[in-house]
């Protein structure tokens, strides 16, 4: 086993559900910020522009990330009066997954592993 394989194995040593969540759903730092924001403010429902404002990010950068979160079932998009409005998906299972992810992030080792997977995914 070479050192890269060893690192990958070490970094994948986490709850399989959370590993999948990081690899396939929260696979960017903006998504991480958004998921944390919606976890802390769960009944937020707003336009891209306003969500970007809340997150202190550029709407151009936030829009594709929100769209991907919709595609992966983390969030839902609803058209209200011609405005695309984003909010957390209603699924209790998804809420639990987000809750578990945010709780896991309190552990520095988990955060290091999550950052590793996000950076790898960005390559």
């Amino acid at each position, binding site marked *: 086993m070479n050192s890269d394989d060893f690192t990958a194995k070490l970094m994948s040593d986490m709850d399989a559900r959370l590993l999948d969540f990081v690899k396939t759903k929260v696979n960017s730092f903006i998504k991480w910020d958004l998921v944390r924001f919606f976890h*802390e403010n769960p009944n*937020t*429902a707003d336009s891209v522009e*306003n969500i970007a404002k809340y997150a202190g990010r550029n709407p151009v950068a936030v829009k594709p990330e929100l769209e991907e979160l919709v595609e992966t079932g983390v969030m839902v998009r609803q058209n209200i*009066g011609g405005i695309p409005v984003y909010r957390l998906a209603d699924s209790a299972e998804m809420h639990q997954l987000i809750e578990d992810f945010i709780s896991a992030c309190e552990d520095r080792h988990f955060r290091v592993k999550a950052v590793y997977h996000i950076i790898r995914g960005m390559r």
Partner: protein
Amino acid sequence: MERVKTGVPGLDEMLHGGFLRQTANLVEGATGTGKTTFGMQFIYNGIVLYNEPGLVLTFEEFPQQYYRDAENFGWDFRRLEAQGKLKVIMTSPEVTKHDLESVGGMIETMVTEMGARRLLVDSLSHFERLATDPVELREIQYKFINALKREGLTSVLTRESPTLFGQQEESEAGVTFVADSYVLLRYVEMESAVHKALLVLKLRGSDHAKDIRQFAITPTGIEVQARFEGREGIMSGTPRMADYFARAFIDR
């Protein structure tokens, strides 16, 4: 007439029992006077004391801030949310306007699902960004308030007052006509200290107390206290001693 008690000590007596059911009630004051605290207390008491689930609609402060502020008064908003009796919704006036205009919108669905009876809108001032024309703005606010009534909600709508002390500027008055009641919170300077005053200016369809009361934000929320005795010009922000009071107690 069915009354909706605020549960704020001293206020329901001033309102002759509380707000009227299915009405929009404007609470106006400068920053820090306690508008949001009042609104949160109205919602919390509704759930805990009167079994009336509630919604908080915020246009600026993050819900997280409400959870934290409420906790300081011993009101566990997160627990009430988990019990399905409360939702703190963050959105924008634009989205809210369109949402309430549509059938089966987000707010309508929440009201139906939760059986919500009370609403805090914090703050109505944010609607001012939807229109620069005062006539158009008044129409938007009128439609918004009517939609809330249509949903069967008794609402508290906060509005920011631009002046801290003294005579209030002639602000956008439309909403004060549209609202069913109008409660004013003011800072008052007396003897080098800042006090807070509360006045019920209007309560459509009912009599109400006309006197100006002191109020305090205590560790358990707002408490309306005694009227300002022996002072005149309270709402100017810098009251003077009333002549009768000076004659009776000072000039003797």
